[in-house]
């Protein structure tokens, strides 16, 4: 698992400060894309009535997810400690198969590319991809 260089951290922090203003809209887009493009992920939301992009639940949960990403950006220097509670939540309560972290990461990248095509250069892409992989790893720490 590659660790984040100082340049990666800087790149991610700068990019996040550019995009965080649109976090809420992006969050809803990420989640609805995941549910449409990877229908197997709907199995985690069988308790929701409406899985369409316009659903209030999807929008609210998209916002929650993006807040989690923002938290990870803030706690970038020690993701394992910083995301401990979230890891416990995903491990013991939600029990999301960690393979899905890759799926949501991909959709985050797609939404970044759509919303900020100029800023999401290849250099930004690689640092963000590494960061999301590191976040996924921290989220899976408590699984077993």
């Amino acid at each position, binding site marked *: 698992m590659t660790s984040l260089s100082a340049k990666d951290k800087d790149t991610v922090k700068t990019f996040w400060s550019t995009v965080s203003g649109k976090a809420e809209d992006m969050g809803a887009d990420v989640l609805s894309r995941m549910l*449409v*493009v990877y229908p197997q992920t709907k199995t985690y939301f069988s308790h929701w009535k409406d899985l369409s*992009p316009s659903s209030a639940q999807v929008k609210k949960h998209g916002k929650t997810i993006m807040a989690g990403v923002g938290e990870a950006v803030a706690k970038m220097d020690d993701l394992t400690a910083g995301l401990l509670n979230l890891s416990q939540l995903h491990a013991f309560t939600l029990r999301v198969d960690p393979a899905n972290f890759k799926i949501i990461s991909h959709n985050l990248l*797609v939404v970044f*590319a759509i919303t900020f095509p100029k800023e999401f250069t*290849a250099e930004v*892409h690689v640092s963000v991809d590494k960061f999301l992989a590191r976040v996924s790893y921290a989220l899976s720490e408590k699984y077993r």
Partner: protein
Amino acid sequence: MVQWTDFERATIKAIFAKIDSAVVGPAALSRCLVVYPWTQRYFGKFGNLFNADAIRSNPNVIAHGKVVLDGLARAVQNLDDIKATYAELSVLHSEKLQVDPDNFKLLADCVSIVVAAQLGKDFTPEVQAAFQKFLAVAVSALGKQYH
């Protein structure tokens, strides 16, 4: 055999009618070489791949990016028989180029992201699903002749 819905067929063809393979190809290939630097192992003869700027402006990368996208366009012309269309290409990638087929998925992800950036809001979840299904079929066909 792959089953395509009318929506999927129309969407995939529309995307390829809209994009310029001379733009999307090089953008996707250069992105792949930057984001997944180990893929550079297959391009030792391409010259300077030292940093992102060098990769983007490398004439071999630019030329080859177009070749890759044109290859995908051929699959779009033969949606109902991609496996046969790619049989020779698959042998080439396996026996001559010796590319680890896991790398096809990496390049496909970069193609998705470049096309997403180009199409913007038009790259809806449904369009993304159709396009990624197409890429998955292409990737699978390319891996078929590996033994």
